[in-house]
């Protein structure tokens, strides 16, 4: 790796950590305005106030907010994400399983949308200006803007209610094999595929059009290289750069944007975990959940930067960034 890359990455990393820390502070103080308290959330509205006070003391949730934050932060530095108030056990396993679930769904989404989107984009660029290009552009543009819950309903109606091909719920029976899990994941994945398809196809098309008209492409063709080689070695390689950035950025979105889909398909992902924790006033769970989403976003953005930098040495010197 060249000398310029190290400091650049270090700076990005430092900024990312700063962002995450600020996020934790914002969330923490945001938490303070949520109505109710943890013991009240556990015991319900009808519980005796003395019981609520006693339980808050047991849980440690009656301490001053700053103290709670500091002790949580201290724990986090040593790798302890804290204790859930509602479940009275460490937060980490909950975050872990929710994250795994969300990642499974996100992986299904990307496994479908990346080949589909890039393929459509390449096709559109190669047939630029022709009807198929127009069709892909308009379809991509229209699909991208459809809210997940709207497309979900349409998909559910067709595939789960009418045709009964796919299960309606994303939660598979305990102990199901990967194939059954996949079957349950397809329907929830499709709404996100629909949203992301347009972005990826458009970015790919734009990159392709630029690369096709670039000097190096013309030179390669003039050199007499076969079209296939030109396409794979010169055009695609350069055209996919911006697409990779878009895909990486969308991964962070997908993870949190799953909230709606998770709620529709009753899926226990990180989005529903965050919402549930906010409702239960489960401070450590909420913090850890939000930071996980934030960290995922920051990491994917960082990765996108690194990949872009590696593939495009011009950026390393930093003019555009």
């Amino acid at each position, binding site marked *: 790796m060249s000398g310029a890359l190290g400091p650049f990455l270090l700076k990005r990393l430092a*900024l990312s950590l*700063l*962002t*995450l820390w*600020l*996020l934790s502070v*914002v969330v923490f103080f*945001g938490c303070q*305005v*949520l*109505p109710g308290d943890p013991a009240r959330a556990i015991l319900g509205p009808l519980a005796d106030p003395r019981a609520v006070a006693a339980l808050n003391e047991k849980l440690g949730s009656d301490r001053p907010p700053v103290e709670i934050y500091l002790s949580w932060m201290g724990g986090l530095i040593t790798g302890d994400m804290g204790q859930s108030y509602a479940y009275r056990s460490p937060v980490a396993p909950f975050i872990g399983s929710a994250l795994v679930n969300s990642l499974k769904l996100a992986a299904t989404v990307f496994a479908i949308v990346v080949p589909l989107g890039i393929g459509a984009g390449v096709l559109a660029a190669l047939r630029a200006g022709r009807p198929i290009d127009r069709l892909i552009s*308009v379809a991509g*543009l*229209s699909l*991208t*803007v*459809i*809210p*997940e*819950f*709207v*497309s979900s*309903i*349409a998909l*559910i*109606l067709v595939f*789960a*209610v009418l045709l009964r091909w796919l299960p*309606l719920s994303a939660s598979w029976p305990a102990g199901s094999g990967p194939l059954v899990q996949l079957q349950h994941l397809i329907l929830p994945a499709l709404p996100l595929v629909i949203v992301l398809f347009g972005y990826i196809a458009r970015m790919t098309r734009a990159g392709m059009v630029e690369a096709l008209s670039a000097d190096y492409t013309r030179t390669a063709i003039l050199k007499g290289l076969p079209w296939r080689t030109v396409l794979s070695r010169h055009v695609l390689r350069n055209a996919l750069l911006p697409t990779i950035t878009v895909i990486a950025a969308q991964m*962070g*979105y997908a*993870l*949190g*944007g799953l*909230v*709606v889909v998770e*709620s*529709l398909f009753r899926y226990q992902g990180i*989005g529903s975990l*965050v*919402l549930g924790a*906010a*409702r239960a006033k489960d401070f450590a769970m909420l913090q850890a959940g*939000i930071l996980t*989403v*934030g960290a995922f*976003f*920051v990491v994917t953005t960082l990765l996108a930067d690194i990949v872009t930098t590696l593939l495009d040495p011009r950026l390393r010197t930093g003019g555009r960034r």
Partner: protein
Amino acid sequence: MSEALPLTEPAPGLAREARTRGVVGRLLRTPSFLIGITILLFWAVCAVFAPSFVPYDPYADDLLNTLQPPSAEHWFGTDQIGRDVFSRVLVGARAILTIAPLATLVGTVAGTAIGLITGYFGGWVDAIIGRLLEVMLSLPLIIVALLVLVALGPSTPTVVVVVGLVFAPLVARTVRAAVLTERHLDYVAAAAVRGESAPYIMSVEILPNITPPIIVEGTVRLGYAIFTIASLSFLGFGVQPPTPDWGLAIAENYGVLIGGFWWTVVFDTAATASLIVGVNLAAESLQRALAE
């Protein structure tokens, strides 16, 4: 970015007018714009006038005729408490077409202000505000909006402000970029030399010159505002019952879907999709027309 210089002409107002005329002409020749604007106008007409021409009171329940399939009497059937779905779908345009534009306005105004300030002053102001904006942007908008609405409780003004504010960072980013290209131009320097105050330079000198990107950003945001508010209504944090609203109707009737009562959701789904596609077709065409 090569065309930047109508700004140095003696009468920038005239040039802007001519440019506007050109844009409108181009737009009217674009089929996707015409389709988009027709859909939008259709729903706008419904939003304003539907209550006076729909066959039933969209609020009136009829508990003895619940979940009736589409018929001559009820074109789109009835919902779980016997309300006429057709009337509710048409009147349903009203809530979303009131809240979404307002939220967009809040977001665009706030975002423009932030963008102007960070872009114009730069330095540590830019660094601090930029960092805070990045924090906001590192979370999916819908999660931020949901958390705030859980805390504050949903009401129309709250939804407008919350959605507006979560959009502000995005607008600010665009505006900041536009300001950065402007602030080193001569006319800004000239104004500074004249001794004009910073607010004056920002609002009177720079702002008129960056309106095209702001307009584009605004129309794109409008599409997303409809998207976000419909999603929030679906999650129970947007438009509140019993107001006819598409997202809310889908949420309310989703539970009976497996019973085969498809008409309780399918028309609201189609309405939401058509409105959003319409707005985006129009926005995209406008964006292109302005860029040409």
